[in-house]
């Protein structure tokens, strides 16, 4: 099972508390995790990546194992610790503004 931590606004939108656990078939990548997340919680579609282009929204960031994965390719495998469920994938609203 993959563990995902959502930002608070998306937890409210999806009506979940704490971490989300997901079955992700095949290789564990940004794309496959987000696909599984959106399949489970349809109301999150369009909030993390654009409906049409599937590009990550500019102020949504992805962290795992202490590293910023936001600019990795969507199909690049995430760390083995995420794939095994030892570490969560953190989806974060960027600190922005003033």
């Amino acid at each position, binding site marked *: 099972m993959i563990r995902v931590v959502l930002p608070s606004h998306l937890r409210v*939108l999806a*009506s979940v508390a704490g971490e989300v656990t997901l079955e992700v078939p095949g290789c564990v990548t940004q794309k496959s995790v987000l696909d599984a997340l959106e399949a489970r919680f349809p109301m999150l579609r369009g909030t993390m990546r654009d*409906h049409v282009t599937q590009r990550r929204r500019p102020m949504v960031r992805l962290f795992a194992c202490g590293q910023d994965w936001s600019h990795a390719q969507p199909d690049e495998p995430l760390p083995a610790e995420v794939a095994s469920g030892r570490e969560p994938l953190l989806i974060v*609203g960027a600190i922005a503004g003033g």
Partner: protein
Amino acid sequence: MSQVRLLVGTRKGAFILTADGKRRNWKVEGPHFGGWEIYHLKGSPADPQRIFASQTSSWFGQIIQRSDDGGRTWSTPGGEKMPDPYDPPGGVSNRFVYDTSAESGAPLTTHQWYDGTQHPWEFKRVWHLEPSLTDPDTLYAGVEDAALFRSTDGGRSWHELAGLRGHGSGPRWQPGAGGMCLHTILLDPHNPRRMFTAISAAGAFRTDDGGKTWKPINRGLKSQYIPDPEAEVGHCVHRIAMHPSRPNVLFMQKHWDVMRSDDGGDTWREVSGNLPSDFGFPIEVHAHEPETVYVVPIKSDSEHYPPDGKLRVYRSRSGGNDWEPLTAGLPQRDCYVNVLRDAMCVDSLEPGGVYFGTTGGQVYASADGGDSWVAVARDLPAVLSVEAQTLP
């Protein structure tokens, strides 16, 4: 006893204010969707317990919310959580995709940018939701970058009425300071095929065939800030209002100038008259008096606050030109708030009520047509929109 419900959208959530028909004691509920910008909420005239909300965020994009119980509970239409094991999702209630198909006759993908070059159309947010007058499942959305969308399934899915962007003048539209937004949608209660929209900074448009084809209706507007002050498009219209009994009579608050049309927008004439400033954002018509109109003058296009620090609603009982200041209960010194275009509304009780919200977080109510005002909420986040529902 009758009841009034105010739907208040703010920079940091939605609030619902309710009072009985006397409109003296108000109950404030909220925030709903705390932390999100709520550009607009509006109830369905066909089913007042059904309310739609535009919830947006620079981080997480656009969400459409719907309540079927008068605002107590909300959900994203079509976005219900999937049971285990779950199927592929169907939630597309926040999917606003421009129609660029050749079949639509509108393969239009660029508009004018600030520097005069062409720029791709990019969806940013929903500014205004306008539910159908007769069908609780049908509603319209005015969006930025400017376009009109329609849902016929209660907000689950959206499809562009592409004839508006595609009618020909689209490449000459350009953003105003607040973005290129379609902010006004008026439905003609006497003719379901007629609809009016307004866009900053493009102007006003009308369809007479249910949204398939559109034409600019800006003749008579004069905007000194554009190269051709009387151009067919390019005018920064801030809002349009109509009285349901006379859909051919339209009142407009433009970037500068208050305007009136008596022929469904074919021609306009200025009715600013004795206003202290004819710059402003909202304009509204009394529920029972079609010639009684309200505006809130703002000092100038760069000074978005009332002249002289005095918050004054101006009322004309003659359809424009002759305006009187309404000040009782409103701050008459050191007041520098703004009132945004969707932040004024009326109820349909007798006597007619008038309401508006400010960027300072106040919501003012008048139960006597504007003669006197009371702040029914004082410390909300900046108010973006106020809509009134008159309930039995």
